[in-house]
């Protein structure tokens, strides 16, 4: 009776699977122990105190894909660095954090100011948005500057732009707080009129609590509006398990 070719192919596949299992089983513990030792060293070098890498699957079988745990107190940049260091150990597969659900797309820090913040800071270094005395009304002379600020912020549309108002320490603090808040809002409205979407702008006032470094709190130069651009790109799920902070 002739043997059917499909039967031979399936039998061959089963034999291949079984031989893979038999080949891997005796080698795996030593191989994984080597990965564990190198990873522990890499974690220490990356400053990940308290982080442990467990090289086992959910069922406890040896695996090349470590589960990182611990290090909850470490900042995101260090965690990303630790994950990257473990990932870079030759032989290690994808790295997953036990307390993380999202695999970061790259090892860049998640908070990163964009260039437009530098552009705006450059604009405001020599000139400042000026207001009427004790009022949140922007002086007409500052309109051109606001036009330029709006143009500089335009490449960052889609990001959250924080507008923070500051005052000097002259006068009572509750009044300063209200004034700094009103001025930040006035700048926000001015930017909205120049085409920057309102939902990306956050106005806040801190009164005189954050004077410029090196200036006395009473110095009038502390009256200012600061912009900071916070990158908020949506998290994109990716099938590539590159290591990240979470």
């Amino acid at each position, binding site marked *: 009776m002739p043997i059917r070719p499909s039967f031979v192919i399936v039998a*061959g*596949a089963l034999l291949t699977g079984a031989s893979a299992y038999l080949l*891997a089983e005796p080698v*795996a513990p030593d*191989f994984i122990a080597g990965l564990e030792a190198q990873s522990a060293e890499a974690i220490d070098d990356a400053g990940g105190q308290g982080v442990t890498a467990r090289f086992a*699957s959910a069922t406890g079988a040896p695996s090349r*894909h470590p589960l990182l745990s611990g290090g909850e107190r470490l900042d995101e940049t260090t965690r990303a660095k630790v994950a990257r260091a473990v990932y870079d150990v030759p032989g290690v597969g994808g790295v997953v954090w036990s307390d993380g659900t999202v695999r970061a797309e790259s090892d860049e820090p998640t908070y990163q100011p964009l260039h437009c913040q530098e552009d705006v800071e450059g604009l405001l270094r020599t000139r400042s948005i000026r207001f009427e005395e004790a009022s949140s009304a922007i002086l007409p002379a500052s309109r051109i500057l606001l036009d330029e600020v709006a143009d500089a912020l335009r490449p960052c549309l889609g990001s959250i732009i924080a507008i923070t108002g500051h005052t000097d320490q002259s006068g009572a603090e509750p009044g300063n707080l209200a004034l700094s808040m009103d001025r930040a809002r006035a700048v926000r409205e001015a930017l909205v009129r120049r085409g920057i979407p309102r939902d990306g702008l956050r106005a806040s006032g801190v009164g005189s609590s954050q004077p410029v470094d090196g200036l006395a709190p009473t110095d009038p130069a502390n009256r200012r509006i600061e912009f900071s651009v916070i990158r908020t790109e949506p998290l994109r799920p990716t099938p590539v398990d590159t290591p990240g902070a979470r």
Partner: protein
Amino acid sequence: MPLWFELAALMLVAYVAGIGIGWALWGRHVTHKE
């Protein structure tokens, strides 16, 4: 993913690729009878 599973997957892929290449080179005339 356990290590043996990765190895098994890799070897099965190689097995299937080997069968495919073997068929393309030498087995065509067996299955393509005129």
